């Protein structure tokens, strides 16, 4: 399905998945006041959304919401969060039937496994639609964490500042930053921990603090190891770049016409050179074959291993999940006819569906339930 993605994208996809689990698996996009219990607990959604985005390039947010069985508002909130985090690029535009057609053609060209037959949908005319796409280059920058905003703390009154406050903290008298409230000389955050270590206080407290710090550090190293490894791997690779929505559509439409393949992918075109002798991971096309009979079995295995940390789902498992989460709308039938060979699953109340399809759908539904459950379980 997506097996013909440019090879050099794969390490980046893995990087996104790792980062999602390392930094965003506890993110809830609701206000902190609301209780994080039961149905309102949407932790884990961030991970699901990022994962889904690794399997797509540009995608209409509405479609993504449907694929993930998320409320579009919830998805939008999550995406807005990632937009602020600079992991996701978004684009909004007034859509005409023609625009939708171009987009559909581009999606078909990337083989992202999404329904391509939307152009007949009258409802799409002249509405503002939002699109989103992962920004791999930014993600890499962020993770390399060279660019952290320095924090400062006042040793007297513990007031905290960041480098963004710098202008207000300078003093005409010396070379340091000064606290606005008590004029104490501020200490950079990293230096502060070290100072604490050396500072007085009884020995026990110090030892405890020391132990705690050591633990923290070790935990962090352990948890971040796969991430750092992956960063090392993508270090010299060309960052996948899908360009703006318009450019992407143009490229994909053109690329498809030209060679029926994805000559569109910039990372692919630069694949043949410039890696400076770095051994390229994931060499060899990943052909993924999936038969339905295998799914539920695998699903169980997944549930068992649900709480193993950092376990990354094989991409094809989620791919299946996407397919089955196709929302049943009024126009599903019509759409299914048009996009027939693709993935649309007919609504269950449709009397015409064959038993076979019904089975497949049930299996898929079971599977997606198990996947969400496992994910939630792991969050707790």
């Amino acid at each position, binding site marked *: 399905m997506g097996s013909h993605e440019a090879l050099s994208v794969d390490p980046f996809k893995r990087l996104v998945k790792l980062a999602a689990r390392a930094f965003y698996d506890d993110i809830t996009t609701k206000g902190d006041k609301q209780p994080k219990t039961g149905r309102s607990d949407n932790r884990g959604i961030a991970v699901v959304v990022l994962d889904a985005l690794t399997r797509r390039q540009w995608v209409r947010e509405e479609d993504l919401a449907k694929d993930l069985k998320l409320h579009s508002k919830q998805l939008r909130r999550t995406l807005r969060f990632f937009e602020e985090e*600079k992991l996701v690029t978004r684009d909004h535009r007034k859509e005409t039937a023609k625009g939708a057609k171009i987009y559909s053609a581009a999606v078909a060209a990337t083989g992202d496994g999404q329904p391509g037959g939307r152009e007949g949908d009258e409802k799409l005319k002249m509405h503002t639609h939002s699109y989103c796409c992962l920004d791999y280059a*930014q993600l890499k*920058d962020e993770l390399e964490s*060279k*660019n*952290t*905003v*320095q924090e400062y703390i006042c040793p007297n009154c513990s007031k905290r500042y960041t*480098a*963004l406050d*710098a*202008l207000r903290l*300078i003093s005409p008298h010396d*070379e*340091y*930053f000064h606290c606005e409230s008590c004029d104490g000389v501020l200490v*950079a955050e*990293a230096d502060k921990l070290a100072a604490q270590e050396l500072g007085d206080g009884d020995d026990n407290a110090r030892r405890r603090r020391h132990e705690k710090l050591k633990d923290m550090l070790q935990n962090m190293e352990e948890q971040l190891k796969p991430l750092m490894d992956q960063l090392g791997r993508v270090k010299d690779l060309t960052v996948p770049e899908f360009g703006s929505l318009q450019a992407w559509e143009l490229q994909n439409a053109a690329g498809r016409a030209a060679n029926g393949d994805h000559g569109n992918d910039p990372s692919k075109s630069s694949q043949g050179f410039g890696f400076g002798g770095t051994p390229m991971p994931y060499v060899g096309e990943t052909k993924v074959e999936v038969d339905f009979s295998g799914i539920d079995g695998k699903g169980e295995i997944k549930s068992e291993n649900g709480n193993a940390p950092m376990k990354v789902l094989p991409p094809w498992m989620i791919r299946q999940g996407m397919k089955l989460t196709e929302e049943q709308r009024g126009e599903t039938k019509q759409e299914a006819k048009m996009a027939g060979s693709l993935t649309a699953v007919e609504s269950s109340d449709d009397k015409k569906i064959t038993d076979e399809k019904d089975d497949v759908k049930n299996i898929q539904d079971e599977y997606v339930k198990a996947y969400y459950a496992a994910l939630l379980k792991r969050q707790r």
Partner: protein
Amino acid sequence: MFFHIVLERNMQLHPRHFGRDLRDKLVTKLMKDVEGTCSGRHGFIVAITGIESVGKGLIRDGTGFVTFPVKYQCVVFRPFKGEILEAVVTMVNKMGFFAEAGPVQIFVSNHLIPDDMEFQSGDMANYTTSDGSVKIQKDSEVRLKIIGTRVDATEIFCIGTIKDDFLGVISDPGAAS
């Protein structure tokens, strides 16, 4: 990044300016009022390049002042996270250095200055490499990357880094002297 955009402003004009050069007065006042100002939303208004339209004036009760809605084209400058800028160093201290790129002030903390550069105090405080070949001091020109912006209603402040490839000093005033 620079943008050429159209903005609108309600201009109040004293009745003494009413006459055949009312429009000129309006434009002059507009330039005086908005050029060099900063709004968090659009960035710094660098220059007005044209007047799009002047709407109908409205006499204000009690004062005789007239309010004209004016649409004008202007060049604005708004810094973005990730953007590379060339800036002039304005101040160096132990915590890092401040620089200006046109109207924008940028702070580079010492953590985002390459590790091989050390702070040297003195009348001309600076950051210098151990071999003395590269020096950052007041009036040095540096290329930096914006890593964070603080956008208030009337102010934009940035923090930057020079700890990356191709960033750092691009001309050193100390080298010539």
